[in-house]
């Protein structure tokens, strides 16, 4: 099993953090992982993306050219990466920020209004965790205990109190049924 | 007698100083070139010493160190007997180092020989040459007493080149009233020219590694 997951959106949406939690999820599940961010000017407000590979085998190239899973949180990233997704792969789209639908019929599209849900929950910054919850449910590979363990490793000790609320957001995404 | 050999960079001061030292009895040659660490009296030290010439050089001459410190021995040589030849560094920059010995030099009989090579840039015409000479005089606080025509293009020197250089040296002499001491050059060439001035045939002592015999 190898998942090549591309997270993409605006700087400030927590894209890199989202990928980091996913990497820790792989780590606590005993898998090989790699996490590669885009860095530099993009980090300071432009588009941001990161490549996460989770695999049973040693990770070769850490660069993803054709993701098996794409998580997009803005339109430019959707336009840029939509066609790179491997056939049979997943695209998870924040439908409160991207009104377009995918034109591809060889991938599974999951539309979730993550930003709107986060606002309604009173945690506007956690749309990224809602998206991650959706990805976890799509991949159906891990337990919530493992998610909690991964969060504990990703969040610095000074911000421990945020673990619970992050977990709630992940759960909301996990439970959201976008496929009706 | 103190002979001070000065002039423009690359005018041939060191070769003239070495030849002069070899021609005199009881001679001490002082390498006072604080400007350029290459092609200096120290290169001919062995040859000079085997001909009984005392050689005083900056202590780091011919080492890896670019530090032209002048040795205290110079003062002792100046207070002793015999002939002293100062091989001075190029231009006024090189002549500055003479300044500290001014008092000692003036107490003795001395000659300041200004070497001219008309083939060198910055001494191609009389005005520039005189200007440079005046700068050297100011830096050393000594007056030039003789001009030496050492015009040459190294191995490509011809008698025409020497005679062109003589025209320049004559002009400098006329304008300043400083007498011409000699025309210098390789003996074979000097033999081919006619001149009213004394000839100073040179045997060359500074060479490149590829010119040295095995």
């Amino acid at each position, binding site marked *: 099993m190898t998942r090549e997951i591309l997270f993409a959106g605006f700087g400030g949406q927590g894209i890199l953090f989202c990928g980091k939690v996913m990497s820790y999820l792989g780590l606590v599940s005993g898998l090989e992982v790699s996490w590669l961010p885009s860095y530099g000017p993009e980090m300071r407000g432009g588009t941001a993306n990161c490549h996460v590979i989770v695999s049973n085998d040693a990770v070769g190239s850490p660069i993803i050219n054709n993701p098996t899973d794409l998580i997009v949180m803005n339109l430019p990233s959707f336009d840029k990466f939509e066609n790179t997704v491997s056939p049979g792969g997943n695209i998870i789209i924040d439908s409160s920020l991207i009104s377009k639908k995918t034109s591809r019929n060889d991938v599974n599209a999951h539309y979730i209004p993550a930003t709107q849900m986060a606002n309604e929950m009173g945690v506007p910054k956690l749309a990224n965790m809602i998206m991650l919850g959706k990805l976890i449910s799509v991949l159906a590979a891990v337990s919530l205990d493992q998610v909690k363990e991964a969060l504990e490793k990703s969040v610095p000790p000074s911000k421990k109190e945020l673990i619970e609320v992050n977990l709630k957001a992940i759960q909301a995404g996990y439970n959201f049924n976008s496929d009706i | 007698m103190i002979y001070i050999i000065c002039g423009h960079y690359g005018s041939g001061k060191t070769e003239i100083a070495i030849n002069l030292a070899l021609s005199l009895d009881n001679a001490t040659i002082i390498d006072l070139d*604080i*400007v350029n660490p290459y092609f200096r009296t120290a290169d001919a030290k062995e040859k000079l010493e085997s001909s009984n010439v005392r050689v005083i050089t900056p*202590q*780091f001459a011919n080492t890896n*160190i*670019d*530090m*032209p*410190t*002048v*040795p*205290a021995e*110079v*003062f002792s040589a100046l207070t002793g007997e015999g002939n002293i030849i100062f091989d001075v*560094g190029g231009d*006024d*920059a090189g*002549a*500055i*180092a*003479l*300044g*500290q*010995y*001014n*008092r000692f030099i003036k107490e003795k009989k001395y000659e300041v020989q200004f070497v001219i090579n008309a083939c060198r840039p910055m001494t191609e015409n009389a005005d520039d040459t005189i200007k440079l000479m005046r*700068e050297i005089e100011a*830096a*050393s*606080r000594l007056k030039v007493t003789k001009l030496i025509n050492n015009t040459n293009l190294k191995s490509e020197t011809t008698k025409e080149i020497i005679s062109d250089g003589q025209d320049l040296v004559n002009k400098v002499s006329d304008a300043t009233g400083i007498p011409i001491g000699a025309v210098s050059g390789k003996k074979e060439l000097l033999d081919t020219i006619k001149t009213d001035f004394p000839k100073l045939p040179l045997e060359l002592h500074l060479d490149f590694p590829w010119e040295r015999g095995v």
Partner: protein
Amino acid sequence: MMETIFERPKALADVPFHYCPGCTHGIVHRLIAEVIDELGIEGDTIGVAPVGCAVFAYNYFNCDMQEAAHGRAPAVATGIKRANPENIIFTYQGDGDLAAIGTAETVHAATRSENITIIFLNNAIYGMTGGQMAPTSLVGQVTQTTPYGRKVEMQGYPIRMSEMLATLEGSSFIKRCSVDSIKNINDTRASIKKAFQCQIDKKGFSMVEVLSTCPTNWGLSPAESMDWLRDNMMPYYPLGVYKDVTGGDR
């Protein structure tokens, strides 16, 4: 019975100096060695030698020494001090080293209040390379690279390092001295001692600037050089204490 009236300081190595006759490097080396003896710190002292005429300073002291690249002595000293804060570190630098190529290292060592001592020889000329303009060469001074005299519009003004470093919060003891007379030589010795004491007391950055001569490149006899120093350098570089906060706590 003979009485010893002149003795080589123990911290000074038993080798002849290479300096030109009349050069003041020798005097200042001796003063540093005397101070090291007086303070009894030879076994703890590490000196940093510069590039410049004092490039061989590492041969002249009996303490451990490091040679530094041109201008980098304060950075090298910082590295040594941070590796072992109990050692006493001094740098010995000329004007080109300290005030031109190494200005950044000097200023930042001072502003960090790096607990080191700098002995700064200012003779207004580059000696090692044969008499070119120094950052401290005076206006009008003729050097190999200012053949028509240093001109403000071309080369700017000579830099006063003691005054400049004294404005920095981090400097603790800054003094300008001279070695042109017995009285001033004694004062320089006392100032060097105070600078080392400042470091021993962990009070931060100290520097003693010493106005010095260069007979060879100035084209003057040693005696004339001393006159030139007094007549030309002292008016522009006044002697005195520019900073002294060693009395209280920082």
